[in-house]
């Protein structure tokens, strides 16, 4: 079924019709010539090996299609893309036919029209006419194309009725309605190639062919939500979004995801004040066309457990709602009362803190005379400067760039499970592993990565042994010869007892290998951050000084810091929490200030490779919540240390002064070549719940039950009642 891979889904390092690899059957060598052909009277030049459909697209002739997708292998089974080729006796399926030099193609002739009509008639003969109750309505390829290319009547009046297919339970995310399936097999190809969950397939044959897993099983993949976007009909739709909205009611806002450090480009669809769904936006440099399930479905967490008004803890240890002036005055009073001076004033930045607020908060704390700028790293590691140092950007960035992963020929994973820490990046590694002879080695807790790897050991000792060349094996051999070796260190390493040793070891190794790992055209040393705020944290220098590390704080400002260890907060300290969810951080606080979630503010986010991107406000914040940087700015006035900016432009000027790359949105500044310093388990045990938004999400809780704790309870009925949520 699977044939050559379409161009966009091929790793960039591989040429068309690629050379012999271990995992490929063909041994023909690549010839990257351009060929010229005529489409509808227009001459068009495309690379050799392109599909005819790509040549037609290039000539500006739209071709209807169902099974063909740029990023998936070619199946050629829907037959919708038939075109007429001169001197060919029959219409040709343009997705499966290679563009040939000198071919004369017609896409707008009576033959083609008739062929499309015929195909459409067959597809619709078994497709239920339930568009009014179908969630795909309004964005359905079958609907659109049947109007554009189909006939207005059918010749099928089967006494026996239409084909009936049982629905499959694919888990809490994908809702199936298999009667609507037209068997384009896009989902099957996605699951097998991109997601690496080789459970989905086609069973039966002919009219009885159906998509499914044969056995009862859920689709256990972090990328499973993407099959919903891929499905050209309403067979696979979103369970949490089922019957919630119609596409034409939604306002779309282009934004950036912050639930991992990849900065996936997303489109937030909202209706009124509610986020209705999140969908991917194509960005070949970051997330291609995919997003992870957490990115897609944690949005219902934005409706629960929100902080909507300022809260002050009363004498009976209960929160009392307050007005903004009262809350800010209470903070000023608290600061006075504790008598905190200098480094005793501490700020802790959490996972979801945006760059603007980090800059403003850092200025405020510095003006109060403190350098105690901690972050909520695991355990006590956030209270000290990070072991990798932050002076050189390449020490904490993903230097090879996300797209650059595809050109690596050997990858060494150190203490990371990219499948959980950056699910979309993991699909790139899998893509490269499938189509090139990439080898992967792993030091750290063994994990299911969706591609093969050689496990080199669990701990720092194993890493030392490998780096000193004492390990024999295929991976070690290939690593030694690799032209573009890539080391990927998990951010958890900076939060590990052996972290300093590991980074030191790697730094010495990178330095010792000279030009092999770090050179002008290749920087193979990478730190994979898993938390959205950390790259910006390090970029803006939001780390404690050595002196501040040992100070016992008396006044603590938690900025979205929910992963902070409660034991690290002294009982007599005055604690302020600013954030959007009433989670662990708010429980520790004396005063809570309601901020905005990422869908409610326009702010800058820096991803793991150092790319700064602009998130945009899709919906207004709930209740009295305010934009985060403005809260800190207002607080500075109450505390008597006015910050010198009045508006967002002023804040961004300040960001420019700190690091110009912070406001060069969407671009990527190369990192310097200098690497000053460069069981290791991943700290992420539950992919689906890592931050306040995903912890508050019902869908993510269901995913946790289905895929992490694997509770046997039926998920039926859950999520069916309308959820009572504010905002």
């Amino acid at each position, binding site marked *: 079924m699977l044939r050559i891979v379409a161009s966009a889904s091929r790793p960039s390092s591989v040429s068309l019709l690629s050379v012999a690899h271990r995992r490929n059957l063909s041994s023909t060598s690549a010839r990257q010539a351009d060929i010229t052909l005529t489409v509808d009277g227009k001459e068009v030049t495309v690379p050799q090996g392109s599909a005819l459909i790509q040549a037609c697209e290039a000539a500006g002739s739209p071709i209807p299609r169902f099974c063909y997708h740029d990023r998936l292998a070619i199946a050629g089974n829907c037959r919708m893309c038939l075109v007429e080729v001169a001197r060919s006796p029959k219409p040709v399926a343009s997705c499966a036919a290679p563009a040939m030099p000198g071919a004369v193609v017609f896409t707008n002739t009576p033959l083609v029209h008739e062929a499309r009509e015929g195909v459409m008639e067959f597809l619709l003969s078994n497709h239920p006419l339930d568009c009014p109750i179908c969630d795909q309505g309004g964005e359905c390829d079958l609907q659109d194309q049947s109007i554009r290319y189909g006939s207005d009547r059918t010749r099928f009046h089967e*006494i026996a*009725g*239409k084909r009936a297919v049982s629905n499959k339970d694919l888990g809490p995310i994908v809702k199936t309605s298999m009667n609507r399936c037209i068997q384009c097999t896009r989902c099957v190809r996605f699951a097998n190639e991109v997601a690496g969950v*080789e459970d989905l397939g086609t*069973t*039966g044959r002919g009219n009885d062919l*159906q998509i*499914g897993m044969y056995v009862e099983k859920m689709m256990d993949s972090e990328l499973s939500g993407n099959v919903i976007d891929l499905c050209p009909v309403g067979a696979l739709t979103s369970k949490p979004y089922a019957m919630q909205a119609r596409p034409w009611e939604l306002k779309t806002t282009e934004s950036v995801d912050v639930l991992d450090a990849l900065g996936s480009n997303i489109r937030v669809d909202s209706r009124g004040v509610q986020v209705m769904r999140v969908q991917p936006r194509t960005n070949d440099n970051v997330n291609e066309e995919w997003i992870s399930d957490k990115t897609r479905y944690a949005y219902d967490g934005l409706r629960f457990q929100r902080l909507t008004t300022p809260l002050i803890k009363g004498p009976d240890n209960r929160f009392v709602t307050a007005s903004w002036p009262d809350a800010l005055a209470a903070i000023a009073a608290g600061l006075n009362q504790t008598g905190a001076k200098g480094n005793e004033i501490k700020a802790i930045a959490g996972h979801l803190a945006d760059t603007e607020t980090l800059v403003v908060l850092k200025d405020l704390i510095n003006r109060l005379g403190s350098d105690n700028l901690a972050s909520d790293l695991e355990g006590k590691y956030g209270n000290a400067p990070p072991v990798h140092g932050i002076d050189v950007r390449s020490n904490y960035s993903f230097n090879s760039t996300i797209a650059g992963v595809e050109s690596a020929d050997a990858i060494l994973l150190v203490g990371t499970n990219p499948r959980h820490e950056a699910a979309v990046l993991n699909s790139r590694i899998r893509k490269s592993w499938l189509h090139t002879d990439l080898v992967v080695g792993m030091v750290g807790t063994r994990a299911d990565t969706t591609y093969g790897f050689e496990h080199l050991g669990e701990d720092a000792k194993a890493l030392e042994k490998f780096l000193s060349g004492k390990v024999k094996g295929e991976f070690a051999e290939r690593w030694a010869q690799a032209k573009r070796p890539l080391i990927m260190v998990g951010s958890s390493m900076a939060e590990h007892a052996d972290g300093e040793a590991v980074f030191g070891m790697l730094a010495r190794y990178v330095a010792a290998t000279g030009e092999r790992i770090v050179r002008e055209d290749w920087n193979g040393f990478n730190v994979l951050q898993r938390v959205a705020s950390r790259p910006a944290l390090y970029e803006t220098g939001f780390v404690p000084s050595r002196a501040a590390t040992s100070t016992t704080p008396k006044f603590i400002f938690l900025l979205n810091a929910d992963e902070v260890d409660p034991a690290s907060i002294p009982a007599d300290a005055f604690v302020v929490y600013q954030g959007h969810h009433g989670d662990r951080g708010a429980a520790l606080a004396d005063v809570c200030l309601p901020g905005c979630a990422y869908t409610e503010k326009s702010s800058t986010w820096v991803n793991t490779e150092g790319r700064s991107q602009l998130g945009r406000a899709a919906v207004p914040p709930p209740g009295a919540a305010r934009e985060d940087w403005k809260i800190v700015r207002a607080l500075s006035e109450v505390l008597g240390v006015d910050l010198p900016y009045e508006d967002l432009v002023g804040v961004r000027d300040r960001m420019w002064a700190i690091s110009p790359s912070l406001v060069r949105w969407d671009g990527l500044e190369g990192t310097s070549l200098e690497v000053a310093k460069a069981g290791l388990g991943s700290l992420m045990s539950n992919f689906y719940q890592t931050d306040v938004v995903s912890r508050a999400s019902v869908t993510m809780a269901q995913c946790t039950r289905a895929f992490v704790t694997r509770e046997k309870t039926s998920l039926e009925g859950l999520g069916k009642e309308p959820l009572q949520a504010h905002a």
Partner: protein
Amino acid sequence: MLRLPRRLPRLSPPSSRLISSTAPKRSDALFIHRDTPYNNPEIAFKFDAQNLKRAQEIISHYPPQYKKAATIPLLDLGQRQNKGWTSISVMNYVAELLEMPPMRVYEVATFYTMFNREPIGTNFVQVCTTTPCMLRGSTDILNTTCAHLGGLKPGETTKDGKFTVIEVECQGACSNAPMMAVNDDFYEDLTPETTKKILDAFAKGEKPKPGPQSGRKTSENSAGLTALTTKPYGPGEFCQPEFQ
């Protein structure tokens, strides 16, 4: 005087009205697996020593990275060892042996109709009803078979588990139509009488001689040869004397 009720009852009143007006179209086999006491992944299956040797021999025909090419022969081997049907455990075992995702094996096993995914009787009777056999009276053969085995319907197994009867498409023995296959053997040129005889023999545990049951040899003309009736030339016959 007989009085008619004011409303005549309908001839076949539906007991309850369905919401949908379309009738379900059913396939003869399910293409999804549902766990049953006799067919679930918990039931262990392994090739016996002899079959394992045979399996390894089959696998050795293919390059090591394309081991999956052995899926069909291995499934067949598994089906034979598993009393003629391919259980989910057989499929899982083949997938494990060939180091491929189980789904790829399920796809193959559901695609090919000769992999029985439900248990069958000891004698698997497949009656051909495709056009040439039908023209030669396969309907009679099928009816005879079903009636003789105690009123089965095609697709059913006898209560004693000795016979399963199904209708199949062309088996490629059209010149000897009508025909049926019992397990691996073809019984051809059938009449209702010979069919009963064959079934009786199988019921007794015997195995009748496969092939045409009419007494003719393979697919020769049953009325005797009409061509090539004379003695064929021997070497040198009708040749110049010097070549004789």
